[in-house]
């Protein structure tokens, strides 16, 4: 009944309607569209009959629409217990009305049918009128029931539009959503109805609005207050029983979400709301559920189970051993019994081993502190029972997992926790004590180092100067006192302070005042050196680590100012939308990091400040703490969602997260202090072990190839956005080419040249290191006599023989057939040429120059041909898209398909061995062979690298590669490093020496 204006809003004295098989008893309600009547069915049951009169509508259409709506709703109403069931819909056109028969609400006095004369329906409104508010458990049960009912309605693309206490009736004690007269198609709900206080700011008529209204309804039921008082909590909350009080505060979290002013901040749907209410109903904490990453909780549960299983297994083992000894003593030579006991013991050992392995896997995939250390300890224990590839793979995965290593964990006295802050090296911290003194303690052992005289007002917090000689303390009355720690004398007092910071040289204090002014004080003289307007309440204040500038922003504005340290004047002004309350420069000074009110974190290149280089969206509330390690590579952020996120600032990749409410970085090492109320945790960030991940290309322009120079110092990558060379000693990156995609790249044998095949030509660069700086320089070379025509239409190519010879593949323009030619640099002669019958994808020439092999991505085969001969190619059938590679001694040909990886003897083409592969991941594999040993690395897209012994065909290990598709793989000349180009713009470099050393320590090497 959302549309059409009734002609008359009073009920009037309508004659009793006639409803099939029902005896109309009396009118029990009147609405603008007709009346509600009490009726008795032929079977003797009491029902409610709602009558909708045509005369109450201005025209035919809204009346008909209402009738259609009810008819559609009738079956839906009966398929959920939380919706009042419509039992029958009827129509009397002659009398000008339609009606529907519904379940009858219980009477207020609780006795159905007891007194028809005084019948009044029992609704949530009548309930709240007599009981004021409901116990929390009832509210939760009611919420779950009604959210379920709304979910049911919404799934049928309908909305209720008038959820309120008087529209919740009780039928046989069950709460149900009533007044379905307002239910209308979600797409048609246009006109504005509803009840004040239950209507969200954006208006009624959506599923999101129903969720809002239900939140307000639960607020009324739980607090006994009027919905218009939302979000005020009851004034007498302190006197409530503890369980009711804490329960209401938990429910408050859910209601704050359900009734958020922006629809996007509410529960996504009614089912999610029901789920949250169920969490509370089950006695768990929603505050914790909202706050703690579920992943780490799950890991803890798994570990708990794993440890329990392990303990049971140990107990069983001991029991079985004792049994065995007794059996031997008693029965002497009962071999059968002994056999059983031994089997039981070995089963127990296997169980224990398996549970340790599970524990390690759960830890590795969790975000918990010390996850790697603890996982490796479990694997070391498991290896004592039996080593195996499963443990080895788990160990390699654990080693690759970065972790926060806990150096010290301790708790502060609860009263003092909020005012305590660490110094810049995380060696000391200041603490406000309830006797109004500020004391300084050692982070190592909590020993008190210093105590300042008591102050008249409590301290809010304090900050140490970067050199550790000053402590600025902000008091409750917004005064800041500056203390010299050497003399314990107060040097300076500043009033009306909102924010403050020291300059990096510890010679000045920058103060943002609540009056919208900025002041700079000289610490040695205690005098004010400058005063400048900000024009707003200061929002963020950050000091550059090396340059004499700092950042300010105002709470109400969308911009930031970069100001000079000497006089506070504005050097630059930048428009930054949705600027939040925190900003920081990375410790290397190269990035500016800003927090935003849309919960994002943006990273800008300093000083260019173009568009943000990264936009990180980890937080579910506004980020307020930003900290980086001294190298400027690791970023730790904490937001109002009480979560700390650790990210790689180079590409914004999220590494870890932990619950925390504050974070502070050490200036001299990759260490952070994470605070969580009174619990403090000093952690060190340990990056991946024996694995380096280097982002060298733009996002989504993943390199296709990564090759080492002969010396191993340079690593070149070719990608759709060009070529980069990483200097592995200095970490410098040289951008060789960025305008053209690189199809294949190769170093010359002496590493003085780099070749690249691009879609239109072959390019080459001369590589030189600058004397003095040692920096690599690349200079484009003209290659005379190369015969550009061979590369003009290349679809693929290869440079081999230490960069001496080339192979080019193209589609012959006249015939359309894929063709190839092979020649030598410096000569115009073509050594051999031919055409492909099929495939021709990623051709490879054997290192001895005698064979050419290629894969077929569209067919189900690979092929090999002897160069220079007139023999036809030999076709090697294999399932799926195929790729090929030769071993360094040219004796093995690896062929990879979707179901297996095969190694052929090149001479006989006999299959030496085959390794099965998971066919659900059918992308063609890539290969890299070690030169000095029989190891072969096989990249199995999308996420792993398999290490195979080419002598035996044994699988030795699996290297995890996250979830990136892997392209080219290569070992360096010393066979120590394996580089893999991944589709997500990074290059992964494994250090086999370190890896195997660590595996040996664990007893898990191959």
């Amino acid at each position, binding site marked *: 009944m959302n549309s059409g204006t009734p002609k008359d809003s009073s009920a009037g004295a309508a004659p009793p309607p006639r409803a099939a098989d029902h005896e109309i008893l009396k009118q029990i309600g009147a609405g603008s569209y007709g009346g509600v009547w009490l009726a008795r069915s032929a079977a003797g049951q009491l029902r409610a009959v709602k009558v909708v009169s045509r005369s109450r509508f201005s025209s035919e259409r809204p009346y008909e629409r209402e009738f259609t709506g009810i008819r559609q709703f009738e079956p839906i109403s009966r398929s959920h217990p939380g919706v009042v069931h419509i039992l029958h819909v009827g129509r009397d056109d002659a009398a000008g009305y339609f009606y529907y028969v519904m379940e009858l609400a219980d009477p207020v006095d609780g006795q159905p049918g007891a007194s028809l004369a005084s019948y009044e329906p029992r609704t949530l409104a009548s309930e709240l009128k007599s009981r004021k508010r409901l116990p929390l458990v009832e509210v939760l049960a009611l919420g779950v029931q009604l959210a379920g009912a709304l979910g049911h309605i919404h799934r049928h693309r309908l909305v209720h539009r008038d959820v309120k206490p008087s529209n919740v009736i009780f039928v046989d004690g069950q709460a149900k959503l009533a007044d379905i007269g307002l239910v209308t198609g979600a797409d048609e709900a246009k006109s504005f109805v509803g009840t004040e206080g239950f209507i969200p*700011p954006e208006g009624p008529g959506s599923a999101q609005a129903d969720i809002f209204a239900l939140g307000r309804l639960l607020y009324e039921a739980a607090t006994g207050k009027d919905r218009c008082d*939302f979000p005020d*909590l009851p004034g007498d909350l302190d006197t409530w029983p503890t369980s009711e009080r804490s329960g209401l505060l938990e429910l408050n979290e859910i209601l704050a979400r359900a009734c958020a*002013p922006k629809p996007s901040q509410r529960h996504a749907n009614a089912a999610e709301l029901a789920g949250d209410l169920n969490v509370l109903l089950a006695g768990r904490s929603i505050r914790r559920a909202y706050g703690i990453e579920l992943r780490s909780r799950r890991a803890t549960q798994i570990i708990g189970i794993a440890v329990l299983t392990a303990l049971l297994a140990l107990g069983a083992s001991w029991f079985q051993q004792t049994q065995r000894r007794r059996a031997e003593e008693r029965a002497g030579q009962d071999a059968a019994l002994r056999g059983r006991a031994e089997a039981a013991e070995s089963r127990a050992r296997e169980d224990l081993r398996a549970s340790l392995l599970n524990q390690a896997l759960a830890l590795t995939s969790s975000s918990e502190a010390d996850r790697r250390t603890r996982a490796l300890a479990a694997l070391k224990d498991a290896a004592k029972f039996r080593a195996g590839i499963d443990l080895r793979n788990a160990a390699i995965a654990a080693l690759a997992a970065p972790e926060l290593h806990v150096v010290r964990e301790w708790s502060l006295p609860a009263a003092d926790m909020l005012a305590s802050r660490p110094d810049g090296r995380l060696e000391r911290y200041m603490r406000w004590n309830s006797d109004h003194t500020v004391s300084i303690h050692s982070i190592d052992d909590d020993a008190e180092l210093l105590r300042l005289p008591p102050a008249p007002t409590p301290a809010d917090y304090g900050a140490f100067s970067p050199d550790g000689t000053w402590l600025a303390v902000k008091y409750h009355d917004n005064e800041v006192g500056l203390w010299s720690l050497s003399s314990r004398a107060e040097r300076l007092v500043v009033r009306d302070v909102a924010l403050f910071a020291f300059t990096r040289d510890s010679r000045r204090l920058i103060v943002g005042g609540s009056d919208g002014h900025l002041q700079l004080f000289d610490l040695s003289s205690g005098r004010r050196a400058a005063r400048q307007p900000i024009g707003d309440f200061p929002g963020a204040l950050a000091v550059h680590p090396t340059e004499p500038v700092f950042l300010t922003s105002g709470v*109400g504005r969308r911009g930031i100012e970069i100001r000079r340290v000497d006089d506070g004047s504005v050097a630059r002004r930048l428009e930054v939308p949705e600027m939040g309350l925190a900003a920081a420069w990375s410790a290397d000074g190269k990035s500016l990091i800003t927090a935003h009110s849309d919960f994002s974190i943006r990273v800008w290149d300093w000083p260019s400040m173009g568009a943000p280089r990264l936009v990180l969206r980890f937080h579910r509330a506004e980020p307020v703490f930003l900290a980086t390690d001294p190298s400027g590579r690791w970023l730790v952020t904490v937001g*109002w969602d009480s979560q700390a996120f650790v990210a790689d600032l180079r590409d914004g990749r999220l590494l870890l997260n932990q619950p925390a409410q504050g974070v502070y970085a050490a200036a001299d090492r990759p260490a952070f202090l994470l605070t969580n*109320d009174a619990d403090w945790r000093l952690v060190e960030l340990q990056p991946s072990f024996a694995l380096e991940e280097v982002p060298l290309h733009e996002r989504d322009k993943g390199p296709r190839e990564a090759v080492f120079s002969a010396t191993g110092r340079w690593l070149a990558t070719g990608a759709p956005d060009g070529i980069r060379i990483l200097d592995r000693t200095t970490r410098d990156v040289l951008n060789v080419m960025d305008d053209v995609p690189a199809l294949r790249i190769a170093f010359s044998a002496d590493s003085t040249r780099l070749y690249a095949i691009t879609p239109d030509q072959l390019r080459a660069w001369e590589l030189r290191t600058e004397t003095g700086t040692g920096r690599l320089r690349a200079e484009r070379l003209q290659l005379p006599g190369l015969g550009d025509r061979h590369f003009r239409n290349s679809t693929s190519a290869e440079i081999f023989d230490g960069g001496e010879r080339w192979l080019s593949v193209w589609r012959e323009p006249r015939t359309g057939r894929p063709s190839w030619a092979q020649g030598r640099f410096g000569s115009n002669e073509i050594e051999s040429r031919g055409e492909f019958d099929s495939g021709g994808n990623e051709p490879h020439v054997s290192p001895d120059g005698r064979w050419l092999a290629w894969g077929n991505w569209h067919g189900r085969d690979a092929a090999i041909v002897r160069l220079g001969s007139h023999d036809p190619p030999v076709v090697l059938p294999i399932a799926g898209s195929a790729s090929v590679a030769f071993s360094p001694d040219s004796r093995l040909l690896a062929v990879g398909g979707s179901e297996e990886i095969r190694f052929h003897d090149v001479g006989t083409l006999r299959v030496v061995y085959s390794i099965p592969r998971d066919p659900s991941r059918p992308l063609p594999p890539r290969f890299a062979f070690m030169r000095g040993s029989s190891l072969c690395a096989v990249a199995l897209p999308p996420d792993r690298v398999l290490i195979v012994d080419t002598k035996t065909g044994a699988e030795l290990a699996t290297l995890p590669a996250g979830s990136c598709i892997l392209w080219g793989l290569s070992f360096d000349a010393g066979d120590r490093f394996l580089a893999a180009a991944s589709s997500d713009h990074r290059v992964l470099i494994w250090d086999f020496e370190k890896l195997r050393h660590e595996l040996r320590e664990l007893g898990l090497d191959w």
Partner: protein
Amino acid sequence: MSLTEEPSLQTRRSLLSRLRDFEDKESWQTFFDRYWRLLYNVARRAGLDDVDAQDVVQDTVMAVAREIPQFRYDPERGSFKQWLFRILRRRVADHFRKLYRQPAHAGISPEMLEETGEADAIATRDGVSLSDAWNQEWERSVLEAAIAQVRAEANPKHFQVFDYCVLKEWPVAKAASTLGMNAAQVYLARHRVSQAVKRAARRIEGERLKGRVV
């Protein structure tokens, strides 16, 4: 003056029933919702009892409903605030005259009373002049409207922080532990909402001075 000390719902209901039969419903309903508390409070502070204060509100609302079509905002001639105060002051002065039946005032029209500035001499119960009381109550009414607006638009938990820390003047630590937040969050939320209230108050005041009913 505490913001929680408010005329009761009872008063509102009673006022509404007095005005129910006043024919031109459209014109006064919204105005009534926005301003009845302001008018009533000022009347009470002037020393009128509940019944007389309700009379004044009723008379003022009816007068405004009649006269508002003639009101045009003109900075030269004064704001809606002043205009409304003039109407209210006239009613209050009328009541006093009725109340005390002072012979000196017999035969003097309210307009003359106004011209001589005598109405301004009406001191309120708390000793401030009627126009000061009006200014205070006007500000309070604007602030209340601003808070009501922010209440609907702010993040509910932030508003709870504001309610506890500013309106109820709780210590930060207590609000933080009750709401399961840390002190930094509480400080920032308090600041955010306070700023939003200030902005809303500025806007509402500006609109109301021009006579728009917000």
